[in-house]
């Protein structure tokens, strides 16, 4: 262990936090905006449309994000029409490519998360809202979505953590976010332990903040007057959405 190098890394690597956070926040926002209508379609539209959305989420959730990133970054340039179009200005830039990939990926995950939340909104609530004379859009905006969002929040927190971790893939298309800077430093100094451990600590700090923020939001949005004390597990497993519940005796 070379502590001088670690100090160097502690000084240098935080300059990559900005790009990591930019990629994460922008792709989460874009993914969320895209996923809200898609989740409504997936949950409530007629089977044909719902299946089309399912196909999108299935493909994006079933393939590695690295493949998607390379497909967009290297693959799209092969099509002549893309190179000729105005989008080429955007698509030849690694930053926009990474952002587009992450947004599409995040949208696919968020759609499934929100869809599950939408489907678990009790039918009676929607019927009550309809009985009060609310229009369909009002029901969606005022009743269904807020409740579904609250239900989906723990799973969405995992998606946020997953996106922070996933943004490290941007280093494979030459972007210098935290992982990219760490790899650059390692190739200059060849001291992988020290530098990657510092990078890992930065990511750990970022993901911990994201987890804490989600938990805070969960407590704020909780409708219980006295929210139950939180479970001891600080992280929930990121992927599984299925709740583990004891069998009914």
């Amino acid at each position: 262990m070379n502590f001088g190098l670690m100090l160097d890394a502690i000084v240098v690597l935080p300059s990559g936090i900005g790009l990591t956070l930019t990629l994460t926040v922008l792709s989460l926002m874009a993914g969320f905006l895209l996923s809200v209508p898609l989740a409504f379609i997936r949950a409530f539209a007629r089977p044909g449309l719902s299946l089309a959305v399912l196909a999108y989420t299935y493909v994006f959730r079933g393939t590695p994000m690295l493949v998607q990133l390379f497909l967009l970054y290297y693959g799209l340039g092969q099509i002549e029409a893309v190179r000729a179009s105005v989008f080429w200005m955007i698509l030849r830039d690694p930053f926009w490519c990474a952002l587009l990939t992450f947004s599409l990926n995040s949208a696919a995950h968020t759609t499934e998360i929100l869809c599950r939340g939408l489907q678990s909104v009790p039918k009676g609530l929607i019927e009550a809202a309809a009985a009060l004379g609310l229009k369909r859009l009002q029901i969606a905006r005022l009743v269904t979505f807020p409740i579904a969002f609250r239900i989906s929040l723990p799973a969405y927190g995992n998606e946020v953590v997953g996106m922070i971790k996933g943004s490290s893939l941007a280093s494979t298309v030459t972007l210098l976010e935290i992982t990219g800077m760490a790899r650059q430093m390692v190739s200059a100094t060849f001291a992988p332990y020290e530098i990657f451990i510092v990078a890992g600590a930065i990511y750990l700090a970022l993901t911990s903040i994201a987890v804490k923020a989600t938990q805070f939001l969960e407590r704020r949005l909780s409708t219980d007057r006295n929210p139950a004390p939180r479970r001891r597990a600080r992280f929930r497993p990121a992927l599984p959405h299925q709740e583990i519940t004891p069998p009914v005796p």
Partner: protein
Amino acid sequence: MSGFASQFVVAFMVTVGLALVAGSLGTAFGLFLAISKGGAAPRFMSVVTAYTTVVRGVPELLIILLIYFGGTTLASKVAGRYVEVNAFTAGVIALSVVFSGYATEVFRGAIAAVPAGQTEAAKSLGLNAWQRWMFIIGPQMLRLALPAYGNLWISLFKDTALVSIVGLTDIMRVAYVGAGSMRAPLSFYLAASALYLSLTTVTLLSIRLAERRYPAFGR
């Protein structure tokens, strides 16, 4: 493209092999940690919690890079000359570390979800600790953990693509090399996505089958 078909077949086997080895090791280690977390000393419990927190809070790519390059440095230092860690070995270690981190939490949740009365009843019947785990808690816990555990396998298959970055010739690597040499990135990456999609689909279907075959008790 046709010359790459055989390479894709080999790479497919490498990806599947990597995932199976890493998943099995990770499952064994995760089970061990989850079971020992239940009855061990508080200090050991906090060590396990720290392990799962760190593993799940750090990008998989960084863990793979750390183990590949760090492992090479360490092995060179130990051997006294330059030794390169095999990319497959590094991938297996890194992915089983990641898998065990998640699996520990899944199994721990499932163990906690088995009603305490079951253990108490087993104790009152005079079963020893080994028998309680084998016949009472184990079967119930595994069935409860199955859906979440299956999701771990799906993400494991996707994470294997990251090992290509340190030079393992898996599906992703063959696609990368092929895309470069044939100047046809679109078709090569589409082929790679199709292969990965088929892998995750097969995994998903087997999990669904297992869930139907072994549903949680009492439901």
